[in-house]
């Protein structure tokens, strides 16, 4: 309300109305910006300060110390460890695998909806997206019911006689495979969106031109459609990759010990081991990774594609 009153005062009544006075913009933007500065930017800065002990919060904290960073950079959580492979790289590989899988699953569907399905495309797109808008926890939980040793698949195989009464399929549950499958399941609908938007804005005349000039459908796809939909593909990739690097809920529900990810050690450093500073150092590290990714791919990101 007060904002609009400002608009009135700020806009001169005579002559051509000036549309961009600083006061109006300030009135419109101050509260939303303040919210994000206070509850988003400042907290991230605090995490950075806290991770090097500029401020201390709980009794185990060390004042002005790089120990959390040293611990993190040298321990098996990151690069070292007995197996020579840290959890961070395991998570990176997982996120990479999940993102690529999602793009491969979603691309044909987005292509079909945008270029082949005709008038029903929005309804059918909604059919794909609805699961994404329902409870995340519940969808993960559903897979636990399906994959666990007494679950739908393994009990089904037992009653069909394929699996012996005392046999289990070990790789199916509490495993890296389970985490991979469930994460891909969770994110596929979301990936379909930006690819759909990119393909839908494609000018069909270009495809016709390409075919009139003698290109086969495959060549048209490879030389015209695919390159023009790449921004959507990259956006989709980044929007899955980033949230899954820090993921700890899915690994905890279906991953067991072998499916533990980087996000789990971050969460555990707060919830179990009370090494908050170590957890903060790892969080900051994740922010760096995200920042690097955004620096590389940022210009391809059309976030509008997610909403429309």
């Amino acid at each position, binding site marked *: 309300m007060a904002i*609009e009153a400002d*608009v*009135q005062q700020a*806009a001169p009544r005579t002559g051509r109305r000036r*549309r*961009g006075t600083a006061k109006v913009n300030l*009135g*419109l*933007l101050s*509260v*939303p*910006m303040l*919210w*994000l500065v206070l*509850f*988003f930017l400042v*907290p991230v800065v605090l*995490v950075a300060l*806290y991770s090097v002990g500029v401020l201390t*919060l709980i009794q185990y904290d060390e004042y002005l110390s790089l120990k959390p960073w040293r611990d993190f950079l040298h321990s098996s959580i990151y690069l070292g460890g007995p197996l020579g492979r840290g959890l961070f790289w395991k998570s990176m590989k997982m996120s990479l695998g999940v993102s690529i899988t999602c793009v491969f699953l979603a691309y*044909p569907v987005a292509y*079909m909806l945008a*270029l*082949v399905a005709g008038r029903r495309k929005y309804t059918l797109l909604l059919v*794909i997206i*609805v*699961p994404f808008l*329902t*409870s995340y*926890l*519940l*969808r993960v*939980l*559903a*897979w636990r*019911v*399906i994959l666990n040793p007494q*679950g*739908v698949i393994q*009990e089904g195989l037992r009653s069909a006689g394929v699996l012996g009464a005392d046999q289990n399929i070990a790789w199916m549950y509490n495993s890296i495979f389970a985490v991979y499958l469930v994460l891909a*399941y969770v994110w*596929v609908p979301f990936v379909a969106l930006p690819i759909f938007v990119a393909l839908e804005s494609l000018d*069909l005349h270009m495809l*016709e031109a390409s075919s009139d000039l003698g290109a086969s*459908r495959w060549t048209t796809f490879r030389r015209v*459609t695919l390159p023009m939909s790449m921004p959507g593909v990259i956006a989709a990739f*980044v929007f899955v990759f*980033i*949230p899954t690097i*820090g*993921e700890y*809920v899915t690994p905890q*529900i279906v991953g067991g010990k072998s499916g533990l990810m980087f*996000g789990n050690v971050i969460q555990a450093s707060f919830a179990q081991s009370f090494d908050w500073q170590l957890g*903060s150092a790892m969080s900051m590290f*994740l*922010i760096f990774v*995200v920042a690097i990714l955004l620096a590389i791919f940022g210009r391809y990101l059309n*976030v509008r594609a997610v909403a*429309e």
Partner: protein
Amino acid sequence: MNPAISTRGRRGLWGFFWLLVIFLYAPIIVLIIFSFNDNELVSFPWVGFTTRWYHEFLANGTILAALRTSLLVASITALVATALAIPASIALVRRRFFAKGMVSGLLLAPLVIPLVVMGISLLILFNTIGIPLSPYTIAIGHVVIALPFAILTMVPRLERIPAALEEASRDLGATAMTTFRLITFPLLFPALISAALISFTISFDEVVISSFVSGDQATFPVYLYSQLRLPERLPSVIAVAVVILVMSIIVVVASEVGRFVSERRLEGKTGMSAEELSSLSAGKG
């Protein structure tokens, strides 16, 4: 000849589409079916049909309290996020200002920060300045992650409301406030409802930030998550979750249908087709 697809390719793609739909919905349907199984393990064998898990949750005070907390948090989130998104979207669509790219970058940045990092940073913020954890601290975090979605819901709608309508109103002597109340707000209203629903849904389902800053009053997802270690409580928790799932599907579908209908009405009201509307706003850039 259709340059996009051959007849055989079309059949293949349709087949793939329906396979993906089955992949997406089968787990949800399995969960719904097993929520009626008279077995404490939420799995095979099928013992018999029962609704006792559904009765049990109605008698479980902890679940009801968690649901109440979730409702409170999600309502605050929906209200605040929508209220903040209105001026922010108007500024982004209608006005030009210094460092606009950076401002919109900040407004949308919460989309690309892992939730675990957000949870930790809010926990450290509240600890540093000494704010006790409560449902309100959860709502503060949820507004941050819901705000980009609320803005992204309103911006396309605002872009399709011709600025000419607002200018005409001002030229006829209406104040900015009156113009907002009589022109912009009614035309923006459907997007406002969508934004509020999306914010509500995001908050109601969010578990990561909530578990870091919830204090001793758990929201429903936090409670659900904590019960996963205790298999005997699982069936009744799943029963509630199924009820919520079905409700949220209904809300989502209804709001999407509503959005579609209101787009049609916007075209009717302004007497312009969708193409004309978008070319109008594009020209204004």
